[in-house]
């Protein structure tokens, strides 16, 4: 005689579990048959998640221009831009694997929750296969983690915190942009040459993931050249008036101010430091100096004359003379009447790299794309020979040390390239303590199946 375990309580439990399963957001289950958002028609959709409102909206607008241009080039419209100089030749202007590329856009508002909401909507409602864009590390880390869970590729836009490919690295996420460590490694030797080894630095640091890692990195690299760190003061993001943080600097015995600020904060803190006469001051018998570790064209334009002679670093700049850069600047410049910004370049390149990886893999499945990108070496996209390192999905390439130009002739050349630091000088092991050490792991690639 058989006895069944079918009880009322058991039925309720099973029912609840089934109900919860059915109620799960579709992004976690929709790929059960193949993978998330597997394309079936003649088109494929990409999601460009950039700040269209909020403090980095101008940067987001430039990213959108570049993404639009990349899609045109992938679909065979226009002059092809960097596809002509890219070392991989599999993209032939017929879209990706014969499917025409379309795109949808989302607004990150430079807020993690808004960025996740717009990414989620693009994945669930629009069925995008890849998300690209953004101008903040806080946003990048949040969206990268969402894409990982959803089984979608994340090709990061502008994100400079060590954490994005450090302790928060994810298998489905790839970063072309450089990071705080690389900025610091490139800047250190240049600062030693121009300001010497006997310097005392005072740091003002934006109080969030990017600021902390930027400060930690530049402190390490300046101390390595013999500088002393006098103080590090954390400032709230969007403080506006930095005067009360700037006034104690001269009294502290420091002779260099390092501004670990970005965007509007950097524009304000640098301008106010100049207003308070720091650049004209003498300290410890030396000319007082200011350093801005991370530059962008839009920040430089915002800060105006105040950046003259101030050192910083960039991932890429339109004034580079290599073939790839020239091809990109030409197609971007002819279409939009202005040279592209660094964040525009990164988004353009990431979109091309994604399309190329899918084509080389012969499949849209994210795990196949991840495999195609891991350890991929390429050239012709503007920074010389570049490696997408398999261990942490960080790109390694030359880094630019920049300086505010003394006599700019147009509004676009207010920064000048001081040095192209070779990649060997900025590379680090994947388990570097600033990048999460041995515990940092990409995890498994997720295709949503």
């Amino acid at each position: 005689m058989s006895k069944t375990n079918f009880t009322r309580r058991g039925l309720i439990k099973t029912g609840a579990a089934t109900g919860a399963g059915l109620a799960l957001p579709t992004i976690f289950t929709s790929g059960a048959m193949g993978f998330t958002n597997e394309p079936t028609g003649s088109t494929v959709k990409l999601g460009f998640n950039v700040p269209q409102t909020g403090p980095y909206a101008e940067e987001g607008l430039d990213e959108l221009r570049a993404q639009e241009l990349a899609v045109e080039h992938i679909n065979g419209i226009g002059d092809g831009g960097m596809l002509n100089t890219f070392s991989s030749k599999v993209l032939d202007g017929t879209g990706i694997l014969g499917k025409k590329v379309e795109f949808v856009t989302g607004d990150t508002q430079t807020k993690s929750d808004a960025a996740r909401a717009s990414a989620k909507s693009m994945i669930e409602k629009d069925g995008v296969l890849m998300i690209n864009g953004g101008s903040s590390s806080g946003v990048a880390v949040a969206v990268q983690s969402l894409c990982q869970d959803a089984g979608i590729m994340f090709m990061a836009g502008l994100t400079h915190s060590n954490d994005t490919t450090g302790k928060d690295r994810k298998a489905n996420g790839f970063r072309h942009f450089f990071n705080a460590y690389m900025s610091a490694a490139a800047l250190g030797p240049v600062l030693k040459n121009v300001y010497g080894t006997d310097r005392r630095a005072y740091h003002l640091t934006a109080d969030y993931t990017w600021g902390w890692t930027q400060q930690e990195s530049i402190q390490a690299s300046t101390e390595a050249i013999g500088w002393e760190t006098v103080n590090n003061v954390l400032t709230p993001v969007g403080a506006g008036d930095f005067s009360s943080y700037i006034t104690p600097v001269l009294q502290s015995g420091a002779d260099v101010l390092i501004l670990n600020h970005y965007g509007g904060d950097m524009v304000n803190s640098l301008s106010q430091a100049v207003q308070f006469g720091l650049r004209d001051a003498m300290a410890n018998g030396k000319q007082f100096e200011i350093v801005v570790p991370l530059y962008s064209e839009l920040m430089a334009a915002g800060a105006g004359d105040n950046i003259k002679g101030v050192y910083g670093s960039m991932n890429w700049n339109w004034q580079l003379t290599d073939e790839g850069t020239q091809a990109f600047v030409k197609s971007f410049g002819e279409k939009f009447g202005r040279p592209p910004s660094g964040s525009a370049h990164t988004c353009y390149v990431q979109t091309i790299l994604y399309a190329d990886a899918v084509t080389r893999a012969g499949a849209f499945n994210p795990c196949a794309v991840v495999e195609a990108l891991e350890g991929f070496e390429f050239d012709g996209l503007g920074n010389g020979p570049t490696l997408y390192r398999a261990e942490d999905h960080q790109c390694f390439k030359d880094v630019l040390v920049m300086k505010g130009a003394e006599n700019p002739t147009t509004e676009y050349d207010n920064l000048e390239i001081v040095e192209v630091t070779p990649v060997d000088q900025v590379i680090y092991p994947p388990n570097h303590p600033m990048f999460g050490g041995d515990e940092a792991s990409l995890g498994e690639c997720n295709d949503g199946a």
Partner: protein
Amino acid sequence: MDAIILQILNGLDKGSAYALIALGLTLIFGTLGVVNFAHGALFMIGAFVAVSLQRLFGMSFEQIDETKTDFLGNPLKVNVPYVDSWFGPDVGEWLIDWSVPLAILVAIPVMLLVGFVMERGLIKHFYKRPHADQILVTFGLAIVLQELIKYFFGANPIQTGAPDAFTGSFDFGRLIGFDPNVIIYPYWRLVYFAFAAVVIGAVFSFLRFTTFGMVVRAGMADRETVELLGINIDRRFTIMFGIAAAVAGIAGVMYTPILAPNYHMGMDFLVLSFVVVVVGGMGSLPGAVAAGFLLGILQSFASMNEIKAIVPGIDQVIIYLVAIIILLTRPRGLLGRAGVMED
């Protein structure tokens, strides 16, 4: 000692802006009984009047310079400001350089007009409605105004420099016997403080020494009696709204070299200015001014590293802490009339 003097100086310019905005808020609350959450937006609009004038003076036509090339290798198009070609480079450059102070002349009529339109077009319909309705409608208006500014000027801060004559800083320490470079203070911030003192003095004088001001003060004290005397107090109060808008506007104009204007600067200042009004005493003009400077200086002190080492994050909350203490112990505020906020 030098650190204390520095923080007092630092507090003065921020305090000046708080005082000017709070003065306008108090004027509107005292006359019309309206809690105007759009007042910060008026400060922001003033700042953008300065930006607009600078852009207007900077408007240019393209001239091709065959000797140079642009980023695409084509002959460089050089922008020549119209003012340079109309008035000669000397006058043209002077106009561009002095655009911020000159913007005051433009901002006064513009802000008076904005104030009149705002009061007649929207706010007057809410006089008899509860404060919650007034707050909602003015807050909504503030958001509309800031989005409009963002639409036209973008989201990034726009550098709007002081005249060259006022760039750089003044070695205040050397004047009072300290070592050089110990207490330095930018010239423009001194100008701002002096400007705020003049504006505040002018508003007080206007209210105290003119017949118009006397009637307004009488209306603030007892509106019904003044109306019974056959005086159209509404019209005067509307004018006061315009004046309060103008004060906020020119405060914004002159603040642009200190803080690059962006569309949300008004909201940043508004919340703090409300706290200033509450601390100073709702409806008290001297209270608003005194509390503005007091809280500006207090905020500066709270940002000192030594203080933050003891109480982390105190610089972000100090003003609100003071507001809580005042509301608990003296709800009418420092110089407020007995009865206001106490019932």
